[in-house]
């Protein structure tokens, strides 16, 4: 159909309609009028860019995974780096307040299970390939970032943990320190890259006890 065959009035009408439509959309979402932060939030939550409605393992939907909590917000610095000292101290203080200790005190569990968990990256992945928590243990991902024992290659994003218990011993103070760092490491290292395994409910009490045993038990390969 050639353009000439369309009645002029229809064209005018269409043009008017599309103008209205375009300006309505433009009014609503002119990306260039937003700050980069506003646009990032808008893109994440309002543009079908993520599968926000997918159910997640901890209950609820993936939307809540994308919403930043205070700590995530404070520790996200565009361009890299860390917030100022005052902010870091506040992060550390608030992190300390999140730490909950087991009713019967901090225990070392089964280092063998702890080893399996430390070397497992399973858990909490969603999207195109959802981790099945019903039939699999949730791993701690420790090996991704830490060299832990000498028998396998770990990452270097975090410090080496080789000989962790051998060097430090298993005093109550060391057990508490280790527990705190796993539970919410921002207490000791505000805005660290390390996930908060306890305060976010990532690992349960038993898994934390087992991973602690892997690090501290004199029998564990970590300390050979």
């Amino acid at each position, binding site marked *: 159909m050639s353009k000439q065959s369309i009645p002029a009035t229809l064209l005018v009408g269409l043009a008017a309609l599309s103008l209205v439509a375009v300006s309505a959309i433009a009014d609503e979402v002119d990306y260039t009028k937003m700050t*980069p932060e506003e*646009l*990032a939030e808008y*893109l994440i939550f309002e543009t079908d860019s*993520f599968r926000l409605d997918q159910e997640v393992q901890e209950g609820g939907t993936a939307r809540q*995974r994308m919403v930043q909590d205070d700590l*995530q917000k404070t520790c996200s610095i*565009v361009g890299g780096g860390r917030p100022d000292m005052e902010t870091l101290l506040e992060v550390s203080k608030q992190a300390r307040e999140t730490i909950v200790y087991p009713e019967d005190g901090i225990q070392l569990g089964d280092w063998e299970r702890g080893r399996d968990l430390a070397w497992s990256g399973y858990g909490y992945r969603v999207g195109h390939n959802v981790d099945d928590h019903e039939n699999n243990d949730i791993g701690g991902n420790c090996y991704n970032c830490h060299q832990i024992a000498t028998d396998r290659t770990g990452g270097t994003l975090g410090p080496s943990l080789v000989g962790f218990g051998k060097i430090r011993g298993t005093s109550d103070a060391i057990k508490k320190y280790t527990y705190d760092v796993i539970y919410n490491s921002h207490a000791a290292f505000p805005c660290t890259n390390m*996930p908060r395994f306890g305060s*976010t409910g990532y690992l349960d009490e038993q898994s934390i006890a087992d991973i602690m045993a892997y690090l501290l038990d004199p029998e564990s390969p970590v300390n050979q």
Partner: protein
Amino acid sequence: MLRTLLPGQTVSRDQRSTPPGGRLQRLGHGALIALLVALIPLAVWATTFEQAKSAIDEAKQVREEAIAAGVSASPTDEMIEQAESVLPSRQYTRARQYAEWARRQDELAMELLARQEAREAAGEVAKAEVGTYREPLDVLQGLIDRTSSDYLTQSDQNLMMMADSPAIWVAMDGEPLFHEPRGPNNVSLEECDFGKGPGVLEGAYVELPRYFEDTGKVMDLETRLVHCMVTLQGFGPDDPEVKQRHGNGSDHMKLQAYIASQSSGYAWNPPLDHPLEQAMRDAGEVMFFRRAGKADFSCNTCHGDTGKRIRASVLPNKNFPEEWSKAISWPAFRVGHDQVRSSQHRVRGCYWQMRQAGSIAGSDGSIALLSFWTDAARGAPAILPDMKR
């Protein structure tokens, strides 16, 4: 016309053979020479015939050199003629001054020409460095030669296998798919504009994502390809040609690998002239540093330092363009998957790994992130298709 009236000489090679024609041009030279003649002081008598003659000979010799060097027709010929014409009337000083002026003009012109040629040569070198096709393995080797990056060198095996990467075959399969008329409309993708004009692929991919006038959107390669398959070729969004995005056998991977491979060796250079391009890139930067999800990760957690490892894998640093160029060189054959993978596939994998919500291909969020990650590699040459672990 304006140019011929200007004093001095043109130094363009292609004007060398232009005859000194046109009344205006003559008029211009005549006026210029008259002016110069008037300006030359007449009060010096000390010049001998021999001095004047040798100045003229020198000027003629330089004139020949200049012509040989490619300096085009210029008033120096006429100046030399003038010098010779005043010899019989014993105006030796004037003759010498004409001749010296002519010689200096030619020397200056030759110098300018030499400089221009040097600039062009440097441009060619720069172009060879970033702006012409090079085999992916050569590009990678070049990057390795000029950095000492553990990320780039981490897999000897991949370096050895790269020349026979299955991605190269997948890209070859894409060539006929691109050029054949296809789809309900029976049109080829040669009609599709990837930013440098319909069907122009050389260097097109390294300038994506970019803003497209016809959609009013910033689009990455995959999204643009979908757009053309649907609007030009008439495929439906649910036809397998459009919908199937992953795997060596998919049209998408073949086409993306083919299109991208036409940019191998070109420097990443995503445009940021349009306000939307800048807005998307800046939002992508915020997303890159935005910690969220079950494990508090941002992309920067793992890609902000050099030489860090996740398990045995050395991580690329987005602050280091030579490393980051390889990191974002997709499509690439992923040895561990035994498949050619796309940028969008990588983005999805990263969000999955971060325990955040699944990223959706073609979404503005994914394109914003791609805008930032491409900008971060700006200037470094692309390795297309690449091979990764």
